[in-house]
């Protein structure tokens, strides 16, 4: 009966929850230990305990690698992974469209343009991120304005998103075209491929409030989000303020996307891949889907980023890896569970 109760509320089973919570923790420990400078797990624990006024013998170099080089990057991977997964999950439900992802609204393209523009003007990192944020939200607003109105439906919003997205992609190309080929173009191009190598506590401090706030609001709304895929008539007949809910969801998901893109460039696939895997495994109720996406997405991103920095001597852009790893994994899962259902 108790399990029954949990099932109908759409909650995760205890064992599933435990596995999901352990997954990112294990990933973080793994990511801390692996790299060109390998750190044994025992030393990681010692180093963590040292923070709580224990006193273990550790070399300064280990401390430096763990806490100045690796940890901020891992932290950012956790945030970005969780954020993009949640955003993707929301966009999919919002548009009842399994192909929706953070790029659907053109937010990712808008943010990319903002960042590229700032890089072109030689702005510092803080300004790059602010600009990405502003243009991301601009793109979202443009999509909203052109896609809504009389005779609008879920499809027209996605179409508008695609149009606005390609508009901003063209603008990005324009920026690249006018960039100085010696100095600016490589940095813009590299940033556009997506990388977490710029991670530092400052960058995170700027990006994390929006991501955390967005996830928090959506998490609080988690049961109500179940009405998103319903038609407008259906949802309003359940006494739900459909328009308000949609606006809140779009704002949250777009802000999360813009903040992620501003920190590490457009990282594709995560927002499509993780929510689908979670849907296949844990069902469609957002009560379980949202926490599952956060936990799985953050862990997955940490793993992918670890691979990106340790596979070859020179770092591989993370977008390339997510696509190479993600596509086959996704196809196998889709064949197995046989569906695109939300």
């Amino acid at each position, binding site marked *: 009966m108790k399990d029954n109760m949990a099932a109908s*509320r759409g909650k995760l089973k205890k064992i599933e929850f435990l596995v999901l919570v352990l997954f990112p923790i294990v990933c973080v420990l793994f990511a801390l230990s692996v790299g060109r400078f390998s750190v044994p797990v025992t030393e990681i624990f010692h180093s963590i305990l040292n923070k709580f006024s224990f006193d273990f013998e550790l070399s300064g170099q280990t401390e430096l690698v763990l806490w100045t080089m690796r940890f901020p990057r891992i932290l950012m991977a956790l945030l970005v992974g969780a954020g993009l997964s949640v955003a993707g999950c929301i966009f999919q439900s919002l548009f009842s469209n399994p192909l929706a992802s953070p790029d659907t609204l053109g937010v990712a393209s808008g943010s990319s343009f903002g960042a590229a523009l700032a890089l072109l003007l030689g702005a510092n990192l803080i300004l790059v991120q602010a600009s990405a944020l502003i243009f991301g939200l601009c793109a979202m607003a443009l999509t909203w304005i052109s896609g809504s109105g009389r005779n609008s439906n879920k499809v027209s919003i996605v179409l508008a998103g695609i149009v606005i997205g390609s508009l901003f992609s063209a603008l990005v190309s324009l920026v690249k075209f006018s960039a100085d080929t010696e100095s600016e173009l490589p940095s813009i191009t590299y940033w556009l491929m997506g990388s977490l190598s710029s991670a530092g506590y400052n960058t995170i401090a700027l990006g994390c409030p929006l991501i955390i706030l967005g996830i928090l609001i959506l998490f609080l709304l988690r*049961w*109500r989000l179940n*009405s998103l*895929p319903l038609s407008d*008539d259906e949802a309003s*007949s359940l*006494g739900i303020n459909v328009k308000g809910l949609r606006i809140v969801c779009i704002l949250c998901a777009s802000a999360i996307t813009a903040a992620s893109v501003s920190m590490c460039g457009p990282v594709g696939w995560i927002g499509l891949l993780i929510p689908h895997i979670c849907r296949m495994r844990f069902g469609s*109720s957002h009560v379980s889907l949202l926490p599952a996406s956060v936990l799985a997405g953050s862990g997955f991103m940490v793993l992918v980023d670890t691979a990106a920095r340790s596979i070859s001597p020179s770092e591989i852009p993370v977008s390339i890896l997510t696509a190479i790893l993600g596509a086959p994994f996704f196809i196998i899962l889709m064949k197995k569970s046989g569906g695109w*259902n939300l």
Partner: protein
Amino acid sequence: MIIKVENGCFTYKHGRRQVLDNINFEASAGDVVAILGPNGAGKTTLLRCTMGFLKWSSGRSLLESKDFRNLPGKELWKTLSYVPQAKQVSSAYTVREMVLLGRSVEIGVFSLPSKEDVRKADAVIEKLGLSRIADSKCSEISGGELQMVLIARALVSEPKVLILDEPESNLDFKNQLLVLDTITELAASGVCCIFNTHYPSHALRRANKTLMLSPGGSHLFGNTRDIITEENIEKVFGVHAVIGDIESEEKIFQDVVAVGIKADSDQTQTKGSSGSAVATVSIIVSDTSIVTDVNSILHRYSKYIIGRMGMPYKKAGFNMINIFLDAPVTEIRALTDKLNLLPEISVKTTYGKELNQHR
């Protein structure tokens, strides 16, 4: 009167044609109202306007004498529930999750459903016989099951009015009966049910009130027996139809059968007004005291009666009477209807081929 529409008119923005023209109807607790009309007559538009999903161009909907527009959403949707057509479902929620969504109106924006909510959802699932599929995904169950799930979702908020959009179309015989029986049961328990249909026979058998909607936007509203007539069906649906009885062992059902498409040239001529026919009216009376009433009615039609046979079956207290008529079709119908109004009587009329051309 629990729900009422006053002078409802509707025209789509930038549309030239008026879709709904001065609609008036009302329903009380326990009523089953059928909204009947051919495809494209605006049945769904009427429902959507009634519930406020579309705004009336003029006119208004009232719930318990209060204008819909002045009701806060929460109050409105606690009293009124909507069952959409089970056409496509893009969400893979389990049946339990889907039914539980019906409690949304009671559940705060940031809250999860309480144990009480879950219990109520489970009770409705049980009541509608959906327990077997409670943990299946909505995208993997049959159309009939999905329709029942959507009805269950509408019922968990314990509404006084249930509005169903073509609940029985796209379903097979058994599932149609299941849905219609559910509506009948709900009405018997005091819920006012309003449903859209393009099957006159469903309206005829299940609804006590019918609103018949013409493609032109005009409408007829009243007691089902007054509204669903062969003439009206011909006018609204553009088919020749026959309303007749179908007998099973225990019961006589009224049914409507479409017998042919009305040709355009037929439009000026209304069927039955001038035509005459021969007919047999078979009467079985199970209470002998009624026989005098029958005879007095028959006396008024004596000029049309060309023969009669009667036989009392005293042992069982029955009287069996056969009347043979040659009369205008309207008169034969009128006689049949008058006889039908008597208690403890079964009446059936069989028509011969019409003779009107040659007389």
